[in-house]
C-alpha cells in the first residue's frame, strides 16, 4: 500500500495541545495513514492528556473525520474545545 510510505505533514497545535507539546507547529514525518493513527502516535510522543473524542481535526483548513487518508503536504490542525470568556 502506497499510503504506508512516510509522508511529511505540517501540524499546528492549539490550546492545551500547544502547552503539552510546547510547540505551535511542526513539520512531521509519519507513516500514519489516518489522523487517528497520527494522533495516537503524537499522544504517545507528547503524553497528550485530552481524550481523542474531545478533539476535532482540520486538514487543509477543513474539518474532517478521523478516518480520512493523509497525504504528503497536508496541513493538520488539532483543535480542542475552549470555553474561556
Amino acid at each position, binding site marked *: 500500500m502506497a499510503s504506508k510510505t512516510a509522508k511529511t505533514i505540517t501540524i499546528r497545535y*492549539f490550546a492545551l495541545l500547544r502547552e503539552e507539546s510546547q510547540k505551535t507547529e511542526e513539520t512531521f514525518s509519519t507513516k500514519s495513514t489516518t489522523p487517528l493513527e497520527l494522533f495516537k502516535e503524537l499522544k504517545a510522543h507528547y503524553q497528550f492528556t485530552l481524550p481523542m473524542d474531545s478533539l476535532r481535526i482540520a486538514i487543509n483548513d*477543513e*474539518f474532517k473525520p478521523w478516518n480520512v487518508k493523509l497525504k504528503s503536504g497536508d496541513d493538520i490542525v488539532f483543535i480542542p*474545545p475552549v*470555553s474561556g470568556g
Partner: protein
Amino acid sequence: MFLISKKSIEKNQSKTDLSNGHAGAFASFEGWVRQVNDGKDIAALEYEVFDELAVKEGNLILKEAKENYLILDAKCIHRSGKLKIGDMAVWVGVTAEHRKDALKACEYIIDAIKMRLPIWKKEHYKNGDSGWIHCRPVQGNSQSAHEFSNPELQYYSRQMNLPQVGLDGQKKLKDAKVLVVGAGGLGSPALLYLAAGGIGTLGICEFDHLEIHNLHRQPLYSFDKIGQVKSQSAVERLETLNPFINIKIHDEKLTADNVEKLMTAYDIILDCSDNFKTKFLLNDACYLTKKILIMASVYQFEGQLKVYRPEKSASCLRCLWPNVPDDSCLDCATAGILGFVPGFFGILQAAEAIKQILRLEGLASNELLIFDFLSYRMKTLKQVRDPACLVCGEKPMLTKIDAGNYGDENRFQLQLSHLPLKEFQKFELVDIREPQECATKPVVGIRLKNFPFSQIKETEKLFNRRGEYLVFCEKGIRSNRVVRKLRSEGFSQAFSVLGGTDAVNEYIAVHKKDFDSPVTK
C-alpha cells in the same frame, strides 16, 4: 449639485450655472420664510443642518431626479443658520428639453428634500418664545419612521459617513435587538462597542457581582464598583457612553428553563459566557428558535469565533462537538488569561453583530475562526454541517431544550456517528431493551449482549470492571441511568449511546460491509 449655504441664496448665479443650449425649459422653486406658522407669529427662524449627511442625501435626490425624469440638469441650495421673514430658505432649479419634465422633476426634488433631509428648524416667535421643529421625520430611502434627534445624528455622524452605513444603516442598528450573555472578559468590550455603535435595544444577561480580579480583563467596570451587581454597573457605564439607546438587564443565570424566554425579545445573541454548558444551551436554543448566535471562547493566548445563522449552509456547535465537553479545558480563572485576549474576541463579536445588522460580509456560518496572539496566526476552518448532528442534522435528537442535556450525562454519552470503526470494535455493545422491544425493532448484523433493563440489579454480575461498554436502549434515557450507575460504581469505560437503537442501526448500516462477525442476537 446640492449645496448647503450659510449666506443668502444667489439664485441668479445658480440659474446661470444651469444654462444649456439644449434646454427648452427651466423650472424653479423657491421656499420662503413666512410670517405665520401654526397660528404663531414668527419673527425669525434658524435652520440647523447635519451637513455631511444632508449633502450626501441631497445629491442622491438630484441623481434620482435625473434618472427618473428626462431632464438635463438640476441644482438645489438649502440655507442653514438664521433667516428673517421673506428670506429664501431653499431654491431648486431644473433644466429640460420640455416643460413637463422640468416641472415634474422640480416637484420631485423639493418633496424629497422636505421629506428626507436631516434639517431642523428653530422658530423664534414674536411673543419671545422659540421652539425647535423637526421639519419632517428623517426618513432616508427606506421610509422607516424612526426619528433621530440632532445630537444623536452628530453622535453617529462619523460612522454614518461610511457609504455602507448611512442613515439607513444607522436605522437598522437602532431597530436591532441584541442580547449579550455574560458581561465578563468578552462581554465588556462587546457591550461597549455595541452601545457606542447605536444598537437600539441591548440586553445584558449577567448575575455575578464584580470582583477585584475581574477588572484586568473587564474594563467596562471600575474599581469603585467592586462588590456591586455587574449588570447594574454595566448599565450605568453604558448609559453614560450612549444615552440614546435602550438597555435591559436580565439579572439571572441562564438555564435550560429560561433560555428561550430570555431570548424571545432579541434577534441576535452574543455568547460571551465562560462555560460549555451555557455555550451549548445557547447553540441549541438559537438553532431551535432560528436566531443568530455569535460565539467566542478564549484560552490563554488564543481564541475561537463562530457565527451561527439560521440558513441552509450553516453548521452548529454540535456539528463540531456533539456533547458538552467536560472542563478539562480550563476556564480563564484557572488557566490564566491576559485581558486583551477576550478583549479582542469580544470586539470581534460586536463587529460580527454590527456587520450582520448592516448586511456586510462576515464570517460564514460554516466556519470557525481561530487566532493565536503569540504567533499572530489566524485560520478560518471550514466546518460543513454534520448530517448526523444531534441538533441540526437530518434526524435531530435534540428537538427541544431539556435540562438533562447540559449536565453530567454528556461526559458518558457518546455519539456513534463520530466513532471510528476501530474504536467501536473495542467496545462490547449492550442492548438493555426488554425482549418485546427487541422483537419490534431488532438490531441485527452485529454481536451484542442483551441485559433487559428491568433485570439489571447487581451490575457486577453482568459487567466486567475492565470492560469497555456501549450501552443503548430505545431512546437513550434508560441507558443514561444504567451508565450513570455503572460509572458511580467504578466502571469507567461505560458509555451511553446517544439516540438509542436508531443510532445503532444507522451505524451498522453505514459500516455494514466492514462487519465480518456473524449475526448474533
